[in-house]
């Protein structure tokens, strides 16, 4: 049987192929305990993380799940963001 980390690395690469970067990052995290010394693994993992951070900055990815973003619109037409 394959161990859980090997399966996760394989699924991470498949997720990259499908351009599902968020899922890839999750699988990389699961695979990390076994591959943390593997340079190639770390390169792919960190590149994926960086890409997700860039996408978040560009607004293409949601902020982390525990962050609440509320938009409040005042009656006078002004807007403010409360984070």
């Amino acid at each position, binding site marked *: 049987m394959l161990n859980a980390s090997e399966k996760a690395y394989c699924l991470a690469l498949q997720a*990259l192929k499908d351009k599902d970067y968020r899922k890839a990052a999750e699988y990389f995290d699961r695979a990390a305990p076994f591959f943390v010394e593997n340079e190639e693994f770390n390169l792919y993992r960190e590149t*994926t993380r960086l890409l997700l951070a860039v*996408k978040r900055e560009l607004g293409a990815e949601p902020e982390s799940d525990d962050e609440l973003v509320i938009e409040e619109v005042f009656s006078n037409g002004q807007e403010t963001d409360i984070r």
Partner: protein
Amino acid sequence: MSRTESLQGLEKVLESFLDRAVKLKEDRLSVLGGINRLDDIAREIQTGDDITEEIGNWFAEHNGWLSGGVLRTGDQNRIGEILVEIRRELGQSDDITPALDKINSEIDRWSGVIGSPTPKIILRRPPEPAEPITSTPGTVEQFGLVFDGIHDLFAELRGTKPHLLTVLDEALKKAELQNDKEALILSGLIIYYLKQNTYKVEPYVRRLKEAERSQKQRSQ
């Protein structure tokens, strides 16, 4: 160039890098994905699911692998091990159906081409009073005693664990926490075996070295 434009440029570069990296690994990814799928099927059997159709599809889809050139030795070993596992699980069924027969003959065909891992037979015996380790560790007799001890320790740690890595983890814990010299040697042996079979063993080597250092310090 605005900040947004810079980020968009970086986004393209990173996406392009990952895209090319995956393309370079496309062939390997296909093999690893196939092995991963076979592994999933083996796990489904353990939960009692009917995998007849799935495994039939798997054999049909990956038949091309048997013509050679695609699978590395490590891949062949992995597939061989998983097929042995599947056969063992299917063998526990009382109901021998034509579909089951067909799966078994496919497993035979695959094993015939890729080779099947040598079945391991472990004879268990009750623990014997341990001989004290003498001060002449270089003798054949002494090594024989230690080797017997390692053999028994492996049988004890193995239990019903499905994967050698779990046994290795247990052996390393025993070496680290209980200062057990035989567990240390067993760990080294398993690590070397895994390395020969293309596993990534670096984290375990690090733990082995730490356990060895710790044992040396305690004995001083």
